[in-house]
């Protein structure tokens, strides 16, 4: 099960393929439509799923396919994304879930209709490399008291202090950016910074936020990110989106600043 939309929508399910390449279809109940597709029991059975989820390659493949479906549907109509690997033995289970959770699902749908999720990440400056020792000027005016080892340590210490200051200032900028963008959003959520391996960058991430932005304000929001990126000297901003509203359909509300509802 990938996502849920309103019953009135017809999100081209026949034309989309899901995880594992199978065709998608709709299961309807309680005025709602679930986008579902078959997956093999060999991959998604209780025990194989368990080990597959430990396999990062499998997870990446499956997550990308899951996301591709939700994104395609979200381009057609408002959609509540399901977490990866929400698996039922048959459509009967899906229909039953739609009936049981109809209230929650409608609230979630109403909340994200005509709104999109935007991601904003901020990176601090990359840690500086310690360059080669500066060439001794001819005539050697450097103090003879400082040997090359001590000079190295001195430079290293200065560099570490500079890096720390840079990060501190990056953090302050990140918080300011977060707060400023909150004013344009209906709701916001903070993710922990991604590890450099995952983000594919060496620079430390100092902000990883998701915002729920009304579609008519999307342009204003993007412009605000551009402006903030231009004025914040200690961070580099990356805008991603629009995303299906993954971060705003339920679950952990602890970190959500919201207008209510």
């Amino acid at each position: 099960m990938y996502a849920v939309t309103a019953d009135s929508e017809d999100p081209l399910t026949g034309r989309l393929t899901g995880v594992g390449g199978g065709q998608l279809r709709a299961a309807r109940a309680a005025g709602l439509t679930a986008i579902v597709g078959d997956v093999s029991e060999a991959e998604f059975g209780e025990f194989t799923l368990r080990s597959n989820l430990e396999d990062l390659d499998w997870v990446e493949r499956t997550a990308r396919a899951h996301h591709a479906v939700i994104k395609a549907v979200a381009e057609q109509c408002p959609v509540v994304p399901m977490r990866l690997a929400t698996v039922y033995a048959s459509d009967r289970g899906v229909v039953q879930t739609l009936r049981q959770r109809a209230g929650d699902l409608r609230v979630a749908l109403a909340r994200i209709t005509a709104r999109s999720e935007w991601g904003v990440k901020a990176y601090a400056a990359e840690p500086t490399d310690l360059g080669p020792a500066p060439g001794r000027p001819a005539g050697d005016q450097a103090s003879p008291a400082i040997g090359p080892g001590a000079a190295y340590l001195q430079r290293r210490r200065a560099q570490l202090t500079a890096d720390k200051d840079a990060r501190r200032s990056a953090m302050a900028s990140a918080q300011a950016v977060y707060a400023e963008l909150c004013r344009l959003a209906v709701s916001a959520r903070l993710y922990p910074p991604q590890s450099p391996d995952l983000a594919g960058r060496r620079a430390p991430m100092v902000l990883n936020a998701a915002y729920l932005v009304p579609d008519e304000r999307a342009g204003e929001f993007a412009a605000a990110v551009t402006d903030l990126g231009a004025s914040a000297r200690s961070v580099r901003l990356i805008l991603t989106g629009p995303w299906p509203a993954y971060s705003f359909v339920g679950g952990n509300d602890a970190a959500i600043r919201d207008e209510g509802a």
Partner: protein
Amino acid sequence: MTSGTVANVASAEPGIAGGAGLGGSPEPANLGDILERVLDKGLVIAGDIRVNLLDIELLTIKLRLVIASLDTAKEVGIDWWQDDPWLSAQASERARRRELDSSRERELQDENRRLRRRVQALESGSSDGG
């Protein structure tokens, strides 16, 4: 790469609302962005596969994804996002384990020293050994 120009802002995943083209070239969707959304967010509804079992497995993956960044974050004092109860629980668990590990190590070292002393005493005490 720190200077503040418009090219500082890159838009990834150009899509529906036409928000792309902010300057800078679009980036492919970062795996981390996708994983944190499809694994952690999205509506969590119990499927026929029991969710409590799934949760355990997802935690393992989450661990791998975030732990590296947690330590970096702590180091530079970024902890204002740490009101995520899951993350705080993991962090304190890790701290607890590290403490346990180091106290076990101390115990082992002590035991090692005691045994060495006994061996020495035995070796010097009896000539034909045992």
